């Protein structure tokens, strides 16, 4: 990933983070909430090649770590999203090109978001954070899974085109 693309990606994630924290978090969803940020971050990780996925995951995590409402230590999201990006990168060839089938892509993104939140809970538990009862956590995970499945197809085509446009001729 070129330095220019790193700056673009960082700017994009920060803008997305502002939208998530200022607008999306104000919407009262019936079951838990929806993290547009995580859904788009995981989608972009899935679009990228091996190194690109790792850098994208790390940058997405670093920006998410800036969340003032978070109780987690700074760097926790970076660690989790980099690990998930690594999982996506090494399994990319074995599960075929997820971007070729929109349905598979949505399922993979929803799974990735859920895995990210479960990892966040697990890592938080190791660090002694209190994240609520099992029922509450299950509701948050289930709600995020549901809303990710519903909303991802809406932004996927635009995101795909935007990602294609952002690639340099060499990266294409």
């Amino acid at each position: 990933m070129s330095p220019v693309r790193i700056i673009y990606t960082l700017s994009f994630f920060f803008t997305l983070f502002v939208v998530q924290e200022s607008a999306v978090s104000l919407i009262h969803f019936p079951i838990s909430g929806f993290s547009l940020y995580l859904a788009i971050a995981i989608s972009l990780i899935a679009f990228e090649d091996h190194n690109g996925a790792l850098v994208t995951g790390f940058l997405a995590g670093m920006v998410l770590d800036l969340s003032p409402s978070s109780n987690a230590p700074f760097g926790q999201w970076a660690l989790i999203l980099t690990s998930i990006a690594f999982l996506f990168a090494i399994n990319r060839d074995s599960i075929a090109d997820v971007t070729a089938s929109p349905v598979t892509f949505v399922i993979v993104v929803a799974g990735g978001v859920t895995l990210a939140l479960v990892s966040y809970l697990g890592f938080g538990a190791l660090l002694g954070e209190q994240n609520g009862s099992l029922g509450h956590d299950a509701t948050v995970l289930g709600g995020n899974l549901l809303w990710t499945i519903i909303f991802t197809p809406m932004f996927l085509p635009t995101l795909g085109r935007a990602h294609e446009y952002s690639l340099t001729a060499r990266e294409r």
Partner: protein
Amino acid sequence: MARGGGNRSRLLLVILLVTALFFITLDLRGVSLTKGSRSVTQTILSPVQRTFSTIFSPVGRFFGDVKNFGKTNAELKQALATNKLLKSQLAEKSDTKGQLAQLKAVLDLAGRGNYKVAAARVIARGSASSFSQTITIDAGSSSGIRSDMTVISQNGLVGVVKSTTSSTSIVLLLSDPSFKVGVRIARSQSVGVLSGLGSTEYSLVLLDPSGTIKTGDILLTNGSEGNRPFVPGVPVGVVVGVDNSAASLTQTATVNSYANLNDLGIVSVILSAPTSAPSRPLLPTPNPTVTVYVTPAPVPVLSPTPSASPTKKK
């Protein structure tokens, strides 16, 4: 499983993971760099949040209300009638009126407790990306707000100030799983600890092994040293269920809070308070019923008509 790239990829992965772990270690060791970055982010976010709060407040509940589809016809009629009423209220700037009512109520509670408060509007809620339950309010250190100050609504305790910038503050809500507050039962003065569970219910554990809890018991904050983070005497909630398990050393109970944390518009941060608990509990008062006393007017005495009025004799 395919191989995960070459040596450069592995090196990149290691560098990124080590960097993340480095930041985590710094944060856990209390280095102010990481806390400062979040404070800067909050400063950048607050004007945007304020703008979005104004734009989104009428439509923010749209998705939440979708689950109310499929109600019975009677409920639908009632909803239509309510809707009509609400529309007329909307015409009268109901939003402003509602906020004013909340403000009056919360100031009333603060006044009864002799608290010096700073009122603030809720401009954002905690992110869905984290499991913590917080709100952002549009008053900060320039209004005298500092971290670890008690936050109340018209009905009682809402939470505690977690961090501040000059114009905004983040409040950790009572329902957050990491939230704990010392409470006393108004009836018996037994002391216990109330914990958030991440939902609308709370867990109470009595500290006194001989103490008893009854359903309907009212809980008030016990207060902290120097009134921070908690001032004494603020209503917290009411006991709705008691766990009488023989295995536990002390009694535990399930509690419902007085404050509705899903419907917060205006809150107050207690800047200073009397060191002792208020002389009488600051329980939420029901809306007063207007009583009109009608005193019959005295029977009017027929006055002479103007034509019959005496005239001056010339």
